[in-house]
């Protein structure tokens, strides 16, 4: 009874087993267990009633679809052979096999989708390389007729984005920014990651339209390293609140990193209009982002602003609260003194 039973059981459970994947393999390939699929219909006394019910329900559905009659035969099958003593053990064994099948499937799916080894090649860097690339990101290339090499690496850009988040937090705290909806941390992370990922995707899309030779990872990498200039500028100007200093840094440091990105992009694009579109967009977005970061999260210092800014007061101001920070007034007065002596 064992062999035809098993084969018959495997055959009959073909359709429902299709949903459960490799169930058939398990049934016919493996163990020495004697299992008759038809006896699973009786769930009383089994320790896994749900699965027995499920199986029965599926079998009933299958039969209803196929023959269009109510599953009247199923109840009779339940009492067939009446293996009462073994019902519990049967249920347990079937449950065990189903668990193994489920686990195998889940681990297969997991190893397919959650495999972080997909990202491994992009993190294959040495510290010297990272340092070299950081310094290079401030140096515009001269040769724009020959496509420049971009390293498709994600470690440096990711770390730079996190550094920018940390610097933004520092800036927001010292400027007593009041965030009405959301949190400081959420705003900082959202801004930085949103810029990096969003502008990269947008530029990649534009590059696709303008026939530039650049891949998504390279674009992410290029823009990420371009944030190095932003980090330096913001780090300096969040501590020394001096608008002219910021404008100088904005032009020089921001400009250098923008020039480098633009030069690399230009070297990879053909055609004047396309070059203009790409580079104009990137330059505008990059410089404006730095401007936004500075003015949205910086402390309004009344004394210095009155003397220097006058009509150029930024429209959004934050209410200054008193914070027990000692360093800022010291730095401010020092910078003011230096500026006045120059």
């Amino acid at each position, binding site marked *: 009874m064992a062999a035809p039973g098993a084969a*018959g059981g495997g055959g009959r459970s073909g359709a429902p087993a299709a949903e459960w994947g490799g169930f058939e393999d398990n049934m016919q390939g493996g*163990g*020495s*267990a*004697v299992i008759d699929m*038809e006896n699973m219909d009786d769930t009383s006394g089994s320790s896994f009633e749900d699965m027995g019910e499920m199986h029965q329900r599926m079998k009933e559905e299958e039969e209803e679809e196929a023959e269009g009659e109510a599953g009247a*035969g199923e109840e*009779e*099958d339940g*009492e*067939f*052979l*009446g*293996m*009462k*003593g*073994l019902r519990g*053990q*049967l249920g347990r*064994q079937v449950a*065990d096999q189903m668990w193994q099948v489920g686990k195998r499937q889940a681990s297969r799916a997991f190893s397919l989708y959650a495999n*972080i080894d997909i*990202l*491994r090649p*992009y*993190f*294959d*860097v*040495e*510290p010297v390389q*990272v340092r070299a690339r950081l310094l290079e990101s401030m140096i515009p290339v001269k040769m724009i007729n020959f496509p420049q090499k971009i390293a498709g690496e994600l*470690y440096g850009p*990711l*770390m730079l984005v*996190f*550094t920018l*988040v*940390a610097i933004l*937090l*520092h800036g927001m*705290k010292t400027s007593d920014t*009041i*965030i*009405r909806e959301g*949190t*400081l*941390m*959420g705003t900082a992370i959202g801004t930085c990651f949103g810029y990096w990922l969003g502008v990269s995707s947008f530029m990649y899309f534009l590059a696709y339209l303008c026939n530039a030779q650049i891949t998504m990872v390279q674009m992410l990498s290029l823009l990420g390293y371009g944030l190095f200039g932003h980090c330096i500028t913001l780090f300096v100007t969040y501590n020394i609140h001096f608008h002219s200093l910021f404008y100088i840094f904005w032009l020089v440091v921001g400009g250098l990193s923008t020039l480098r990105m633009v030069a690399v992009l230009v070297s990879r694009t053909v055609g004047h209009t396309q070059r203009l579109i790409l580079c104009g967009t990137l330059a505008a977005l990059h410089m404006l982002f730095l401007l936004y970061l500075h003015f949205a999260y910086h402390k309004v210092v009344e004394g210095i602003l009155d003397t220097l800014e006058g009509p150029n007061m930024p429209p959004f101001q934050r*209410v200054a*609260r008193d*914070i*027990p*920070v*000692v360093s800022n007034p010291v730095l401010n007065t020092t910078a003011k003194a230096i500026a006045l002596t120059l």
Partner: protein
Amino acid sequence: FPGLADVSISQDIPVEGEITVPVGSHSPDEDYSTLDEPVKDTIVRDLKAVGKKFVHVMYPRKSSALLRDWDLWGPLVLCVSLALMLQGGSADSKDDGGPQFAEVFVIIWFGAVVITLNSKLLGGTISFFQSLCVLGYCVLPLTVAMLVCRLVLLAGAGTISFIIRLIVVLAMFGWSTLASTAFLADSQPPNRKALVVYPIFLFYFVISWMILTFTPQ
């Protein structure tokens, strides 16, 4: 089996014969019967393990006990206590307090996950939960710093208190970073230690910053 559909056997006829149904594996409950011991024993044992790891963090030697038997109780306790202590931050208006509880929680766990992924991608040999365990336990010095800061702030919020708090937080931040580096950097290829240490530095820097800029209401 259409031919057998009308056969029925009454239920009180026993089935005879030998059918061996090999049971796949013995239930693992029989190996360690921790389910049967009194709850006090379990709790005391877990507390001892957590306490031992705290000691390892405060005196970071190169022992592998922290890595071998990882557990996440300690990090959970530390994270929750830090988040609770950071509540009630300065607020002129009601809707901007200090960092909210959920914010601190998410920062710590999300940051730890990112650092772990980063160190794995750089070729580390440490497992995911071991790394989470180490990073969580090394928040202990910063929790101590938070406690000290709160006590100092009880005395007043002037310049001197700020300097004291700055020194304490800086020292604890250094201690945290060194402790976690001592455990984690060993699992990396030797020329990439700096790449792994930097995100840890940033992570503890952000937490230290939250602690330092905390001003009570």
